[in-house]
Every structure is written in structure tokens, then in C-alpha cells.
């Protein structure tokens, strides 16, 4: 009856290096510098600067970063439903994490974790397909396949 309703935001962070967005450039080898904690910290900072202490009070307790993949820069964030606009707005206005500029692109918003998982898996597939198309090299297939399987397992195992 009085359930806590949430919104699950699926966000992709596109890095922008030297004024050019790095779409499709694989960070597979070196791994990106982001991680879940850094995202949470900068999101908190963004909410505080744009919406003040009241904004953080509305959103802060329920804001969690549930999943992050350094390869495809996908992040799943859970927020309470009533104030998810505030968190989403702060996410859009976010531009720098740890000194590197990013473009946050919210791919999917859903009320249950199930659809967020499905959307994350299909987005991963698209991104890997883009990497493969760019690489034009069949050697990479093995690495990507195992990566896809692992990430699917990780995503499926997400708990509420």
C-alpha cells in the first residue's frame, strides 16, 4: 500500500576529450577513469550547486548508483519517484567528473529494475556492435563476447 516507488535511470557518459566527443572509441584496453563512487560524488555536488540543500534533502537519501561499466560507460542510478526530476535535471547539468568533461545521456527511465536491465543489456549490445564495426577486425570477437556475457550476468544479478 505504501510502497517506496523508484525510478531507475540508465545513463551513458560520453567522454569529451579536447573538444571532441569520443563516440565509439573503445576504452577496453586502459579502462576509463570513472567509477560508481566518483559519479555519485559529482552528482551530489551537482544537486547541491543547482538545487541547493533542499534539493539534496529531497533526493539524497534515495540516490544510489547501482551499476557501472567502465567499458561502455553505462550507469544505472536509482532515485525515488517523487523527486526524480530533480535528480535527472542535476544529472543533465553535470558536465565534469574528476576533471574530465562528459556528456550525460539518459537512455532509459523505468519504474522497475527489470526494464532497466533489459535496456542496459540491449544498449551494451549496440555499443559493442559499434566497436566491432569500427575495429573491422575479427580478432576482437572473443574479448567482446566474454565481456557481453559477464556484463549480462552482472546486470541480471542486480537487486532492488
Amino acid at each position, binding site marked *: 500500500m505504501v510502497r517506496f516507488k523508484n525510478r531507475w535511470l540508465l545513463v551513458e557518459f560520453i567522454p*569529451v576529450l579536447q*573538444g571532441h566527443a569520443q563516440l565509439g572509441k573503445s576504452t577496453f584496453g586502459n579502462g576509463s577513469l570513472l567509477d560508481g563512487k566518483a559519479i555519485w560524488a559529482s552528482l551530489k555536488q551537482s544537486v547541491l550547486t543547482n538545487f541547493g540543500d533542499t534539493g539534496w534533502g529531497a533526493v539524497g537519501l534515495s540516490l544510489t548508483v547501482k551499476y557501472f561499466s567502465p567499458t561502455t560507460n553505462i550507469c544505472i542510478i536509482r532515485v525515488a519517484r517523487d523527486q526524480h526530476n530533480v535528480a535527472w535535471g542535476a544529472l543533465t547539468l553535470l558536465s565534469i567528473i574528476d576533471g574530465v568533461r562528459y*556528456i550525460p545521456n539518459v537512455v532509459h527511465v523505468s519504474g522497475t529494475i527489470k526494464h532497466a536491465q533489459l535496456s542496459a543489456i540491449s544498449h551494451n549490445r549496440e555499443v559493442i556492435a559499434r566497436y566491432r564495426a569500427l575495429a573491422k577486425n575479427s580478432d576482437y570477437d572473443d574479448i567482446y563476447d566474454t565481456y557481453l556475457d559477464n556484463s549480462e550476468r552482472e546486470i541480471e544479478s542486480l537487486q532492488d
Partner: protein
Amino acid sequence: MFFDLNVPIKKTQQRANASKKGKQPQQEIPASWTPSEISDLESRIDLLIHLGYSVIGLSQTVHKKVDPKTHVNVLDSLLGRLQTRPGIVFLKRLNIVLDSESEKGFGLINANVALFNGYDLIALVPTTHNTLSLACLTHSMPTPLTAHIISLPLTLPRLPYHLKHTLIRTALKNGAVFEINYVGALGGENDPVLVDANVAESGASAKRNWWASTRELVRVTKGKGLIVSGGVIAEADLRSPRDIGNIISLLGLSQDAAHDALTKTPKSLIIRAETRKTYRAVLSEPKVVFPPHMEPMGLPTPQDTTEVNTLKRAREDNSLTVLPPSTSAAKKKKRKPNKEVA
């Protein structure tokens, strides 16, 4: 289908003819684009498509007035150089920044129609109260020179004029649209021409001004007739359309009005802008259809019209002895249904 109708293109022109004699006709110097500029633009378009935009408006900004002798449409040559992408539409747009010097006239006159036909959309950026009334009242009337987009300078510390409800309403009724550039919300860089003209600012204070002015604009227009577009110079400031829709709904606009501002309103704006090429916003070319018993070649001769038009008179007035066969057939047809009914 999402629209980004303001992707600023900046191109400095070198003039071969540096003489000050304004009356000499300038040679049309086609804009030359270096490969690095083209590749920059291509990567930006790739990013826009990745974020979900499918209609992209490339825009050129002019300060104060449009001089037909020196103005070069840089976008024509650019469109030819871009890769063709299926399913993506490119539009050309001209932004004219109006300030107090432009109150007397800034080149949007009938003589220059040929110049403006090279652009799909025309936008005005008024900075004084007089230019705002000019933009809302005179230039939103349906003519070949209608400026369909009115773009207010939202990052200035104080909006230079009070937004009067009646002015705005007239403009909306005439079909004009007010534009919100979301780059101000991020405090990102604005078009250098705008910054030079003191129409836009960048940075932290710009953000505060943007929120205040945009909220006021949304209040006065009551959410109708608004479009949202980029105005983004640095690639890092681009955002996907649903993100922007969320930001706009934080301004007090309802969610469906915000979604309309991203989809329905720009779509009808583009179709309306095409009517610049027609006469006074009549959308289709009227085609005269002649009834079958009239002369197929050219206009009917005066004799025929009098015969045909006076069908009733022919029945009443029996003095007409020579009737063309078509009218008697028509008369017979008229009588038949009466007999059948009876």
C-alpha cells in the same frame, strides 16, 4: 523525431575587394571550408544523431542588419560538402541580431527576398523594446519575409524589455514561435557573434540569468509556441532531447507541454516556414478546374459563359432560339428527375 534547430556555424569571410565604396557590387565570394572544419562538423552531427536528433538546423548569425551586397550565404556551400545521411534533414537558418540601430530597417525588405529564399528559417534576436514590437507585430505577418522564430537573449543580466502579454499573444496568433536556447542553462559558450553583440554571456552568472528569464518567458507564453534548441558551440554542452525536456519541465511547464516544445511545435514551425515561398501563407497553389462542358483551352469565351450561366434565364426567356446542345441536354436532365419522382 527530435529537432535541434540552432547549430551555430561560424565563418569569417575574407573580402577580395577591400575598398570602402559600398555602392560597388561585391563579387560573391563562395565560402571555402577547410577539411578540418568539415570533419569537426561531421563529428558534431554524428553526436547529435547519437543523442537522438533527426532534424538539424545549421544557423548563421548576422549582427545588426543584412546587407545584400556583402552578405554571403555560407550554409549553401556547406550543405554540399556534408555526407548524405538517410533519414536526417538539414535546414538552413539565418539569425539576425537586432539592436537600436536596426530599428529603422535592417534589410528584411521586399527587395532582398531573393537573398532570404536561400534560407529555410529566419530568426530575429531583439534587444530593445522597439525591435521586440517590430519582431512580434510586423515581422510575424505572413509574407515572403516572415521571421518565424523570435529568439530572446536569455542570458543577459536583465531582460532588456518587459514581456508584454498582448505583444506575445499577437505574435503567437500570427504563427511566430519563441525559442529557448538550452546552452544558457549549462553556462556553456555561446556563439561568438552573439557575445560580441552583447547579447549573450557565458559562465556561472549566465546560468542564473537564464533560469530567471526563461521562467518569465514560459509564464508569459503559457507554454504555447515554444521551441527548444541548442545554440551550442562546444560539443561537450550537447544534451539529448529527453534530458532537455526534463530541464524545461523544471521551469514550471507541464510534461506534455515540454514534450510538445521538442516535437510538435518545431514540426509545425518548419511546415509553416515553407509557406514563405507561397503567397500570404496559403499552403497550396490553387488550381483552376473548368467544368467539362466549357472550353478546355484557355478561358471560356464570353459567349459561352453567358449561355451557360443563364440556364435559368434560358428556360424562362423563350426568345432565345439558338441554344448550344449542351444546355438543352442539361435542361432535359433537370426535367427528368421531377418526372421520375412524380
